[in-house]
């Protein structure tokens, strides 16, 4: 049986014809291999690009928007912040520890390639259910991989999320966000310029790991266990020590002004780095494939050009600076080799020696941005109306206390394995509403007295019911999380994790989700500065629930005190800021009762902005002793988490029923304030036009919600603390 070679490489017949018409001849095997990786879904965004254009991308702080290696924002004091989020879902499903580790390595390179020092990582993680041994194996491996790589590479992991749900049973989501800071004048772009300049490959030798990672792994679904195991060689292997030295060497090269452009080697390896830098710079490039340092001698040119071996960068250097570049690399024990030359024209040529045979000759821009764009068919899921009509309002709740205890769990099992303190920036670390970091100047370390805040948020329950409204709610929730540490949002990045785009229902979900994000970002004035689309998240023919994840970057104008956090004091008055709601659609409680239907509670973006602004002011002026966003698990979970954090229980009334206790309606925050301060908080809420309800008192050793809940705090705390360690300690099954 002989399948045409382009199909084996993941190209369709139409795409193969398109390549032939670009070249005006039949492509050879090497050229076909290069197109196959660059035109993969992962690299070309061919299914999503038509839709992504609807997102707002401009703002006064935006220095670099989507399309570069990272978004870059002006954060004042001549400091810029670079931010990006990516997925490493498929590699992590096959080989959890290395898949997650190399995800961390890849996102770091995206940041320091912009000239920024990476200062923080965030990991939104989603796994199958805790009672499934294989899902536990994946979860443990992923956390191990992030811990092992992130800690050793010397960049703190300061937050994220961890969610366990059936929808991710065979297809975990491992998203990684990185934030870096740079002096604004050091900003560099991934482009080549200057005919005669040299392309210098920095870092690891090139091997057979990760060949076709973007096309074989990232741009296809999973089918059977046997086939999945066969994909393991497509997963790369990470070396954090190499990456650490690579970071230091690259930043030293940039500080010394020795590079005119620099680009990381990620998906599609050398093919991507050479074609993108040439295409962006409007120049051509000759690459001597025999100059590339190899791990094993007999790599074919197509393997060298598509390998995804980790910890490599491509720097464009003027010939006169080469000696200085080599000296800095030598100090950091980084291999540096001239592999290419910038040329006149627009061709990317792969050569067998600079004066040798031409092995491939293609227009660089045709690899970079000529992939066909697909306007794939879209249709709302057939069962959507039925699911939305199926309201959870009538499900009984015989024991709200027991349900409440089930809804809360401590995530410190995960993040206590991450160094989350390095660089002395972490004012609020993992486990709070949002992460808050001191903002110091990246070169001299001088404290600006201001702060950077980060939050990542996703919610597949909301987005399965209504991807448009659900995604708007995510943006809103992220903004409220930032407000809880006193920050206002300045930019958003997104990681769009969806199923198979060849399924019209999935394309509809993706399109709706992008519209929902655009609506919220327009209304709240938040530019989108970067994103990643991860499609084909499916197992055994079933698509995952749509899971857009947003990462929001915020600023704090004055960082003089630790924000109030979740812990209140005995005797504090507890108030709810924002509207009262009894709508349970999309809630964690309804899902825990096996009910996934209903309508999402409405989101009023104008009211939402006012609540966020009120909360931000209360935090900045230190008028409250505790504050917590109402999200998963509703008001009940917020009260329980605050009681656990403070070791002081609560006595609350005016919660009508279980629906009011568990509703996840947006724009709501629980705050605590001492008796003397209550009037000031009420006054501010009234002035802001934000509803405020007095709920009760922080007191005692029980969590009491009149008529609904009366449980001993210690018991709740014990259940909360032991859920993850107990489940994850129960053993795992590989593969």
């Amino acid at each position: 049986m002989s399948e045409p070679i382009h199909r084996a490489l993941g190209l369709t017949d139409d795409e193969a014809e398109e390549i032939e018409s670009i070249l005006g001849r039949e492509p050879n095997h090497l050229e076909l291999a290069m197109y196959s990786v660059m035109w993969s879904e992962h690299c070309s965004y061919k299914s999503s690009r038509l839709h992504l254009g609807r997102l707002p991308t401009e703002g006064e702080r935006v220095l670099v928007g989507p399309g570069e290696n990272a978004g870059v924002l002006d954060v004042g004091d001549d400091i810029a912040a670079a931010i990006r989020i990516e997925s490493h879902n498929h590699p992590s499903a096959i080989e959890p520890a290395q898949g997650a580790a190399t995800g961390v390595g890849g996102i770091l390179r995206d940041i320091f390639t912009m000239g920024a020092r990476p200062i923080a990582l965030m990991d939104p993680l989603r796994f199958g259910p805790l009672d499934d041994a294989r899902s536990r194996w994946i979860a443990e491996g992923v956390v191990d991989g992030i811990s092992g790589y992130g800690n050793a590479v010397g960049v703190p992991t300061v937050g994220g999320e961890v969610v366990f749900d059936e929808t991710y049973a065979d297809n975990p989501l491992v998203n990684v966000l990185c934030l870096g800071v740079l002096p604004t004048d050091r900003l560099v772009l991934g482009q080549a310029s200057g005919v005669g300049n040299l392309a210098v490959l920095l870092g690891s030798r090139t091997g057979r790991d990760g060949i076709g990672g973007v096309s074989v792994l990232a741009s296809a679904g999973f089918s059977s266990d046997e086939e999945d195991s066969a994909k393991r060689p497509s997963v790369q292997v990470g070396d954090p020590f190499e990456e650490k030295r690579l970071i230091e060497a690259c930043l030293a090269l940039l500080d010394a002004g020795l590079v005119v452009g620099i680009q990381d080697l990620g998906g599609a390896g050398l093919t991507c780095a050479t074609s993108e830098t040439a295409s962006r710079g409007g120049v051509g490039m000759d690459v001597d494939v025999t100059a590339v340092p190899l791990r094993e001698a007999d790599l074919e040119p197509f393997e060298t050009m598509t390998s995804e071996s980790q910890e490599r960068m491509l720097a464009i250097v003027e010939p006169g600076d080469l000696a200085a570049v080599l000296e800095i690399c030598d100090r950091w024990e980084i291999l540096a080799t001239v592999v290419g030359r910038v040329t006149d024209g627009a061709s990317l040529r792969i050569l067998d020696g600079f004066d040798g045979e031409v092995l491939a000759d293609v227009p660089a821009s045709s690899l970079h941005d000529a992939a066909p764009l697909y306007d794939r068919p879209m249709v709302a899921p057939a069962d959507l109306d039925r699911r939305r009509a199926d309201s959870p309002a009538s499900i009984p709740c015989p024991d709200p206390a027991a349900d409440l205890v089930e809804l809360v769990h401590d995530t410190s099992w995960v993040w206590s394995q991450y160094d989350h303190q390095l660089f002395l920036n972490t004012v609020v670390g993992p486990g709070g509403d949002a992460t808050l970091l001191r903002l110091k100047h990246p070169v001299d370390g001088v404290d600006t007295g201001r702060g950077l805040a980060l939050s990542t948020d996703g919610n597949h329950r909301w987005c399965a019911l209504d991807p448009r409204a659900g995604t708007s709610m995510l943006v809103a929730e992220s903004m409220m999380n930032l407000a809880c540490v006193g920050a206002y949002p300045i930019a958003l990045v997104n990681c769009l994790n969806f199923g198979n785009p060849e399924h019209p229902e999935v394309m509809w979900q993706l399109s709706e989700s992008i519209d929902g994000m655009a609506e919220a970002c327009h209304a709240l004035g938040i530019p989108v500065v970067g994103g990643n689309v991860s499609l084909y998240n499916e197992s055994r023919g079933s698509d995952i629930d749509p899971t857009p994840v947003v990462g929001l970057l915020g600023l704090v104008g004055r960082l003089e005190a630790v924000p109030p956090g979740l812990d209140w004091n005995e005797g504090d008055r507890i108030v709810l800021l924002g509207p009262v709601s009894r709508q349970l659609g999309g809630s964690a409680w309804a899902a825990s009762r096996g009910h996934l239907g209903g309508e999402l509670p409405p989101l009023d973006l104008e009211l939402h902005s006012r609540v966020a602004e009120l909360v931000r002011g209360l935090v900045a002026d230190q008028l409250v002793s505790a504050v917590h966003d109402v999200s998963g698990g509703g008001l009940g979970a917020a009260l329980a988490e605050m009681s656990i954090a403070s070791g002081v229980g609560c006595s609350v009334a005016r919660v009508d029923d279980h629906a009011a206790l568990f509703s996840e309606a947006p724009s709501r925050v629980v705050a605590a304030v001492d008796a003397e301060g209550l009037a000031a908080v009420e006054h501010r809420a009234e002035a802001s036009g934000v509803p405020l309800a007095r709920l009760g008192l922080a007191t005692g050793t029980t969590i009491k919600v009149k008529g609904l809940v009366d449980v001993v705090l210690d018991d709740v705390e014990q259940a909360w603390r032991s859920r993850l360690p107990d489940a994850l300690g129960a053993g795992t099954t590989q593969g």
Partner: protein
Amino acid sequence: MSARVGIVLFPGTNCELDVTEAIGSIGGESRILWHGDADLSGVDAIVIPGGFAHGDYLRPGAIARFSPVMTAVSEFAANGGPVIGICNGFQVLTESGLLPGALQKNAGLKFRCGMARIRVASTRSALTRSATVGDVLSIPINHFEGNYTCDDRTLALLRDEDRIAFSYVDNPNGSTGDIAGISNEAGNVVGLMPHPERACNPLLGSDDGRVLLTSLVGSARAAAV
């Protein structure tokens, strides 16, 4: 004149800037010492900070001990100069033979990052001379291989000679005798797993580390005189 602290930088070290900032915050001066140079001139005390020197792929500290700077550090220590190893630095000091015992994988076999409470057990050391025995300090830990171990004879010696500088209040890693930090016989070489530089700013949750770094700078001044 302020005493100057040299901070050793191996490839893979990552806490060098944090120690620099913390020393600066208590009015000390510092400079970075590259691992490939054996030149310690103008330095009155040395800190080997945390991180993963040379990647720690073999055993933490096992390769770092062969860096040229360590020969000079050993001489500096033998002449009574204050030398502090924090976390990976502690591992480097035990591998170099400047301190007894070894650091093995944590009980529980997980990396642990978080606040630890440690009790000052001796004020003989260069890092504790400004503290008080019995003081309980909140100082973060951040390690996979922080489980201190030594033979019974060494443990007895450490106790008899008052060389246990710190002990954990709640042992987080299985360390023998709850040991969080020790010194050499003279008290000028100290190793500890907790990170005092991470506890020098109330915004970060604790400033209990300041008393330790103040002791160090004081020791450096004494050495400089």
